[in-house]
């Protein structure tokens, strides 16, 4: 029972990080109609940048603030160079972002190296949770992820740019006619998506290993959270990420991680068959 709670908590925390990354994917998907294969690599880049910043300055807290800003800049650059010329065509976006993904992975392999490395936890304290030493950092990661997600939703609903983003998503032509700078909103959204994924990467870095291939593993999971939550339903994306990840944590108590992964995939399959438009219908499609 104790291991069950600990692993479920681990799953929940991982789910919060996934939710952060999946939110970025979801806005890019919903607003630009771009299927972003490189999104996992944005996450990977976030953790690699964190690793470099910590190596040179030794300060994790610096990384947690600077990396999303770097991510934002790179995201804007990618949008202007790659996404804009293909005019948001979904099928082409797959290939373009696949190329981007290859490029990003290889540039990390060339500079950072192919071997996975571990990052020291910035908070070394542990506390006793049901008989196991539990890392304090994980709790911090969870709270930080919740904080960012809350800020994101506040931003989307309370600020001018946030409302513009929702307007462009609703109808780009009318939004343009109303004087909203649609093109800038596209760049901004892509950059914001990149920044969210990079932020997820920084937070996750001390929990997992920093590896140039970590994006490949995380990508399908993020896509599933987006789809199962209901396309364009951002709250649904968060909920789906949490449910799937916690479920996987619970199953991992009874079997090995691969079995847990398989069962969460089967669960996803069943959800997709029973509710083809996501668990939270009323998705604003």
């Amino acid at each position, binding site marked *: 029972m104790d291991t069950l709670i600990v692993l479920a908590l681990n799953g929940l925390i991982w789910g919060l990080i996934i939710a952060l990354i999946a939110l970025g994917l979801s806005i890019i998907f919903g607003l630009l109609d771009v*299927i972003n*294969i490189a999104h996992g690599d944005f996450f990977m880049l976030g953790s690699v940048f964190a690793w470099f910043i910590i190596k040179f300055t030794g300060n994790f807290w610096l990384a947690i603030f600077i990396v999303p800003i770097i991510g934002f800049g790179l995201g804007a650059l990618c949008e202007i160079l*790659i996404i804009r*010329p*293909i005019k948001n*065509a979904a*099928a*082409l976006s*797959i*290939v*373009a972002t*696949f*190329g*981007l*993904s*290859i*490029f*990003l*992975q*290889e*540039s990390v*392999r*060339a500079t950072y190296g192919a071997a996975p490395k571990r990052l020291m936890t910035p908070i070394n304290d542990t506390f006793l949770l049901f008989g196991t030493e539990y890392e304090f950092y994980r709790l911090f990661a969870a709270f930080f992820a919740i904080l960012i997600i809350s800020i994101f939703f506040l931003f989307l609903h309370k600020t001018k740019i946030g409302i513009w983003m929702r307007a462009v998503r609703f109808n780009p032509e009318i939004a343009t006619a109303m004087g909203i700078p649609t093109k800038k909103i596209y760049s901004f959204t892509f950059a914001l998506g990149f920044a969210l994924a990079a932020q997820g990467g920084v937070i996750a870095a001390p929990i997992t290993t920093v590896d140039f291939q970590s994006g*490949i593993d995380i990508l*399908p999971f993020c*896509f*599933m959270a987006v*789809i199962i939550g209901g*396309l364009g339903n951002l709250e649904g994306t968060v909920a789906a990420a949490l449910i799937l990840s916690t479920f996987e944590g619970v199953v991992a108590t009874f079997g*090995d991680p*691969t*079995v847990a*992964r*398989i069962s969460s*995939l*089967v669960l*996803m*399959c069943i959800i*997709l*068959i029973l509710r*083809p*438009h996501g668990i939270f219908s009323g998705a604003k499609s």
Partner: protein
Amino acid sequence: MKFLRGNNLAFLIFFVFSILVPIIFPLFLNDYWIKLYSEILIWSLLAASVNILFGYLGLLSFGQALYFGFGMYGVAIGVAKFGLGLWSSFLLGILVSVSMATVAGSVAVRLTWHYFAIITVVFSLIFYFVALSWKPITGGDDGLPFLPPDIINIFDFKISLTNPTAQYYFIIFFVLLCYFLILKLLNSPLGKTFIAIKENNLKSELIGINTYKIKLIGFIFAGFVAGVAGCLFAFYGRYASASYMFYHVSGEAVVWSIIGGVGSFLGPVIGTGLLIMVREELSNFWDHYLLLVGVVVVLLVIFAPQGLAGLYNRLLKKIFNKNNNA
């Protein structure tokens, strides 16, 4: 001579060229290129199976590697575990991949667009992890090697895959057979129905087409093509490995087919050929050649959104228009 046009002509050229490769290539290239050519053709079948679904039915599948993997394991398990011969293990490989495609397809084709893409990924991931963890049968990440059985073994007459020429023609025969079937399909009323569904699903339903059934047939056929590719690759590499079932392999096939030109008959061959050749050539003298591959892929999508086949058609039109004006 009317039938010698467009796709039929392209197939004929492709056919003759493939037959002649072992004669032409040695004149100016080494034997390695003959082997590489047959490998390109095997992978192009995987891209062709994406092309059938995406180019002609409008269904974007990110899970074709699943049927490729099933074909591969069908052959490897057939030979290594059951001790089957070449033909019966080949049949087993095709059978398991087609059955898997039937099961997966009957669920998947109910869904559309993004949902379809995601469920195909989910299916392939499930079996990827199963193959990875079920080590006694599949060999997991290390793979399952086997000794190639003979193609023909009657009395003293033996032809084995260890003979490079025999292996080449064995592979080419089945690849060309698959392309021939695809060509037949595209020219048939069924092929036209595919395109009708791609153009407008609702209208096709309204004129009385059973879209579910047609899509399922397309899905199973694409699974069959991917399965044959998997079987051939198992014979080619003499092993099967779970890593070929990962969604990244499916993604590569999607990229190959879009780069080549989606919805064009030989587009997958061109796209696969180009990217594999770039990989093989560059990897010899530059460790980080993938940087260039990434850039090339992005540039191709930006400047040739219809793929290489589309680029060729555009070029052809330009030349002919010039001639007309002159």
